[in-house]
């Protein structure tokens, strides 16, 4: 500690460089100092050694800074390159070893004969895009190319400014007069919001080495995109990498990215691919488990996680996940846990195995008789229309993640079924199309389906038992023979032999029926199970039939309803499916699959039937409270909804569904309305708004908008009603008040109008239009004389003012309807915005601008508009003496001219003294000389004329001599 005594002694004085008190170079000070900047300075002084060399103190200071700010730049030190001696022997060994092995590897590659030379080169060159600029001409025609090139030379822009001006379209059309113009347009002007990246890489002519190189690069790009959270891009690059060389790693990464995007099915598919290549891949197993959990396929998830545990028994994440799944399963089915495991899976799987076989066959009849008397099922023709729209609907499905899954599975099933030749599909053509659409995916699914088979079988076994557990009884009541047949069926189902399972179940059913008098529960379960098999087989019609029977025996039992819904959905009888799903949801709102499907179908139906799709639906049967309570008693469900008021639930759901699509419709209607207003078609606008109101009675803007239209149409009474309505909802809607005031004015109820205007001003005292109107109305009230001609005039005025308020409002900007003066300015949106200041200046007569900026704003508005009247007003309120200050250096020819004109037209007659003052002070403004020098002859004449009028209107404020001298200043 010898060092530190020195700074103590030198307490006075400062360091040379930073003027830091010497006393600061001290352990105690440094320890307490929290100012990093200061410490950095101290460190620099210490390091420089100008105050002496204190290595320990320097070190201490460094540590202190590091403690305060580990990233401080002062801590950066130049370091020499590391040499072998900097590493431990082992580290160096590894580094060196790696390098050496890489070098040998590279050398080996170099030695390998380099085949694929010239020919492939040519091939690749052919694939290259054309040379820039001459790209829009046909490369085949040599002469033409040359010609174009010459022209191009002339056309190539030579400097930046030209670059900006470069009219590509014109250039293109010059080059190839009309031909391929569209092409070039597309090429130059389509700037898509999302970058289009080719999903595949052309690998013709690439050596294997190159391919590996490219694939790795693409994968790296994917990784980078993934790292920053751009998962869509990541997936694209992984896909590219795979297109070159499919590697497990790329698939694995892609799966992870897809998980992030919640594209569960693609993720599943990719995991399967990885596991195909590398069955023990832990990451893939984990990821597949994640997907399964998300899809609520808990059983396979558990299996996967267990597999991971076999490899990595210590993996905590896996353990945690397992515990979570257990919990979920418990939550799902606290009573019959083991059975419960399968339950959801079953639902999921069945959903997956949809088919639209035998669509032509009319099953409606059966369905109706089947159960739920209330469902009025649409008949024959309807099915046909659905068929026609099928492709469409499907495509839409595909675009959104959730829906695509079912569909893909469904196609796969179709394929299976066609192959098996179980049934001749009436809609074979359709399905063929599907197949070609999804061929890519199908392969993946073949695999995934197999995987999911096992859990499902289990579920089906259990299913029979527990699905009806609400009924209190389980399969125990079955006679032993039937029970045996049933369990055999379940076994077969489990192993994927659905056909055989059907036979077993059928036997069991026959047996049970033969016995007679058996409880309907069991029979229902058997039917339901057989339905599951049919569904698996893709035999939707039989499935529906069985479901109907099951439901006959056991109305409102969950499984058959769900299965029927799925069968219907796969047959694209969306309406029936929707109803079934909804019924299911009434029974148990927590069934995710049903929820998802219902939402999906809603969208499809909206696409199909338009906004009034709901009208085409038959009423959804109301599930008796008993059935729901039933469920509750069974303790099977964790339904969140109170089962007491089913109708309410029903309505609520319906409302919610309604809202979704209503919103869309609402918006379109509103915009349509706004557009009409813009065009001045108020009648149509009113119609649109009225339609809007049908959808949403809450939205105030619609009412205020309609009120505006009514005002324009002179329908004051209606306008007033609309405003009243708004004010009921929102008692301080300023627009509503304002418009009601106008309406009252139109109705010649001046007192009420005055009241409303006052309220407007109470809410916002700055609404100058209101002030003005108020004055006007007050006058009218006083005079109480209503001249017809005058009122007409006033109305016009009113409306223009109206527009000004609209402009202020973002939402209703479109409203600024072109009329009168404004016409020129409302053509484009920007213009509307611009018209705000203009209007203000016009109507307000502007409060006196306090500074040059305000003034500049107003002047700009006035100038763009060439509004001399407003300018004259401006000039009246401004003290001429201030003019040079306000103008500062902004005086321009245009402004000058408009001043002169306004003075000439508006002010000379009224107040020649003021005009003189203005002219006098204008000449004192900066840039006055420049502007004057640039005036054209014509413009000079205008000035001259103004002076002439001034001398004519001479008054006491100036003498002719003054005028003459001023004239000289103006170079006249």
């Amino acid at each position, binding site marked *: 500690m010898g060092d530190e005594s020195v700074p103590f002694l030198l307490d006075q004085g400062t360091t040379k460089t930073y003027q830091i008190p010497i006393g600061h170079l001290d352990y105690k000070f440094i320890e307490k100092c929290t100012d990093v900047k200061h410490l950095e300075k101290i460190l620099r002084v210490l390091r420089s050694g100008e105050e002496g060399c204190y290595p320990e103190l320097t070190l201490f200071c460094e540590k202190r800074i590091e403690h305060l700010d580990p990233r401080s730049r002062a801590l950066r030190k*130049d370091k*020499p390159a590391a040499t072998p001696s900097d590493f431990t022997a082992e580290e160096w060994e590894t*580094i060196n070893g790696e390098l050496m092995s890489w070098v040998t590897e590279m050398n080996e590659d170099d030695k390998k004969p380099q085949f694929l030379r010239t020919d492939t080169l040519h091939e*690749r060159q052919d694939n290259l*895009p054309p040379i*820039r600029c001459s790209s829009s001409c046909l490369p085949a025609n040599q002469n033409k190319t040359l010609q174009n090139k010459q022209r191009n030379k002339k056309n190539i822009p030579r*400097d*930046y400014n030209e670059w900006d001006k470069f009219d590509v379209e014109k250039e293109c059309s010059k080059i190839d007069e009309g031909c391929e113009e569209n092409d070039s347009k597309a*090429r130059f002007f389509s700037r898509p919001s999302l970058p289009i990246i080719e999903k595949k890489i052309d690998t013709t002519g690439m050596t294997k080495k190159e391919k590996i190189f490219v694939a790795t*690069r693409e994968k790296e790009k994917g990784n980078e995109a993934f790292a920053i959270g751009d998962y869509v891009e990541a997936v694209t690059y992984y896909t590219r990498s795979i297109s070159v060389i499919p590697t497990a790693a790329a698939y694995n990464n892609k799966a992870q990215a897809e998980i992030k995007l919640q594209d569960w099915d693609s993720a599943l598919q990719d995991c399967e691919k990885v596991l195909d290549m590398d069955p023990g891949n832990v990451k893939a197993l984990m990821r597949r488990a994640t997907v399964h959990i998300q899809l609520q396929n808990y059983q396979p998830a558990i299996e996967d996680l267990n597999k991971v545990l076999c490899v990595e028994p210590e993996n905590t994440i896996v353990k945690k996940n397992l515990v979570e799944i257990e919990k979920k399963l418990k939550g799902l089915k606290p009573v019959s846990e083991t059975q419960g495991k399968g339950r959801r899976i079953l639902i999921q799987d069945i959903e997956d195995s949809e088919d639209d076989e035998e669509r032509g066959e009319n099953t409606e009849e059966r369905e109706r008789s089947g159960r739920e008397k209330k469902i009025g099922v649409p008949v024959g023709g309807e099915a046909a229309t659905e068929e026609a729209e099928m492709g469409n609907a499907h495509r839409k499905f595909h675009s959104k993640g959730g829906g695509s899954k079912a569909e893909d599975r469904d196609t796969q099933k179709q394929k299976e079924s066609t192959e098996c030749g179980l049934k001749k599909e009436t809609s074979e053509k359709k399905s063929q199309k599907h197949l070609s659409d999804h061929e890519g995916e199908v392969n993946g699914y073949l695999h995934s389906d197999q995987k999911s088979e096992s859990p499902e079988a289990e579920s089906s076994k259990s299913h029979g038992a527990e699905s009806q557990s609400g009924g209190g009884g389980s399969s125990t009541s079955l006679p032993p023979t039937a029970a045996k047949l049933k369990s055999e069926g379940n076994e077969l189902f489990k192993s994927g032999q659905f056909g055989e399972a059907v036979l077993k179940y059928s036997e069991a059913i026959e047996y049970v029926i033969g016995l007679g008098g058996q409880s309907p529960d069991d029979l229902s379960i058997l039917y339901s199970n057989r339905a599951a098999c049919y569904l698996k087989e893709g035999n939707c019609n039989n499935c529906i039939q069985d479901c109907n029977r099951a439901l006959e025996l056991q109305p409102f039992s969950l499984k058959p309803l769900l299965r029927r819904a799925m069968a219907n959905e796969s047959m694209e009888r969306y309406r029936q499916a929707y109803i079934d799903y909804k019924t299911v949801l009434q029974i148990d709102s927590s069934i995710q699959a049903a929820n998802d499907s219902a939402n999906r179908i809603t969208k499809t139906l909206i696409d199909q039937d338009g906004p009034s799709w709901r009208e085409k639906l038959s009423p959804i049967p109301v599930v008796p409270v008993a059935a729901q309570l039933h469920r509750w008693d069974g303790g099977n469900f964790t339904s969140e909804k109170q089962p007491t008021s089913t109708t309410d639930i029903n309505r609520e759901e319906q409302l919610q569904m309604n809202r979704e699509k209503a919103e869309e419709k609402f918006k379109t209607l509103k915009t349509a309305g706004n557009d009409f207003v813009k065009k001045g078609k108020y009648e149509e606008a009113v119609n649109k708004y009225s339609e809007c109101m049908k959808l949403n009675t809450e939205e105030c803007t619609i009412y205020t908008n309609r009120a505006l239209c009514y005002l324009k149409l002179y329908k004051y009474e209606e306008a007033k009603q609309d405003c009243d309505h708004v004010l009921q909802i929102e008692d301080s809607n300023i627009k509503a008040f304002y418009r009601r005031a106008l309406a009252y004015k139109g109705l010649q109820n001046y007192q009420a109008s005055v009241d409303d205007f006052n309220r407007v001003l109470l809410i916002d005292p700055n609404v100058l239009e209101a002030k003005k109107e108020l004055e006007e109305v007050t006058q009218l009230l006083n005079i109480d004389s209503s001249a017809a001609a005058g009122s007409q005039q006033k109305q016009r005025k009113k409306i223009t003012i109206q527009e000004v308020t609209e402009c202020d409002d973002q939402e209703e900007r479109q409203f600024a309807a072109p009329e009168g003066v404004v016409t020129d300015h409302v053509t484009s949106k920007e213009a509307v915005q611009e018209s705000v200041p203009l209007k203000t200046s016009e109507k307000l007569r502007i409060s006196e601008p306090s500074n040059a900026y305000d003034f500049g704003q107003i002047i700009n508005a006035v100038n763009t508009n060439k509004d001399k009247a407003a300018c004259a007003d401006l000039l009246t309120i401004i003290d001429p003496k201030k003019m040079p200050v306000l103008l500062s250096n902004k005086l321009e020819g245009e402004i000058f001219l408009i001043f002169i004109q306004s003075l000439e037209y508006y002010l000379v007659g009224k107040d020649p003294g003021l005009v003189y003052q203005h002219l006098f002070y204008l000449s004192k403004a900066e840039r006055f000389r420049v502007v004057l020098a640039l005036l054209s002859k014509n413009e000079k004449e205008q000035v001259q004329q103004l002076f002439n009028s001034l001398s004519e209107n001479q008054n006491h404020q100036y003498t002719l001599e003054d005028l003459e001298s001023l004239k000289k200043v103006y170079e006249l």
Partner: protein
Amino acid sequence: KIEKAKPIKCGTFGATSLQQRYLATGDFGGSLNIWNLEAPEIPVYSVKGHKEIINSIDGVGGLGIGEGAPEIVTGSRDGTVKVWDPRQKDTPVANMEPVQGESKRDCWTVAFGNAYNQEERVVCAGYDNGDIKLFDLKTMSLRWETNIKNGVCSVEFDRKDVNMNKLVATSLEGKFHVFDMRTQHPTKGFASVSEKAQKSTRWRVRPLPQNRDVFMTSGGAGSLHLWKYEYPAQRSKKDSEGVEMGVAGSVSLLQNVTLSTQPISSLDWSPDKKGLCVCGAFDQTVRVLIVTKLNKV
């Protein structure tokens, strides 16, 4: 060893296929030559593209990097930036030149970027007065420009062949700027973060080919700095008018070394071996370095 009449300033393999490996060079006389290194006597392509020295050259479309046509861009002291297609003789396919009368700035550096599909491509050029200009070759327009106050020694996209992600520009005074090129605000342009390594000039910047967020700068005092760019939580946000604008991340120093007392003027990474890099300095030495533990970054 091949000797040519005119001293060569810069070169690139960027616009040639992995098999051909033609070297494109720019020399002190303003000529662009493409050489087949196995028959180096006569250039395969030669054009006197500029009136003065070609300071910088970059290529794209070859080596499996970048979609679209192989193109070479050259930046010269005569103030022009020209894009060449080896398939078109004598004339550039694009020429970017200051307006007549405007003072011609010395173009020090050029770089290709955004070549993620066949159409899209941009050229970024840095000038001695600190101007950075971004030319869009698809629309043939000046897409963006800015000034970083000091002469721009080197500009480089983190990847040439992805949708523009980041641009690093180094300057005379030791500062470098990282621009997030994903979100362009109509008035504010691209968001950027700047960092000062040392007082000395940053001569060169090179992103690691295996990880675009890691890059190395070489400095006037013979030092190399290895940096990592960290993205912000949100790369873009809406400004007060609801227009998307970029948000810059931060740069952290991973490592630095001083190799020489002379400036290190050139630098490149190995595309094959992660972390292997080579640099050339004014002390007439070429050094090969290996950066370890990059996979832990």
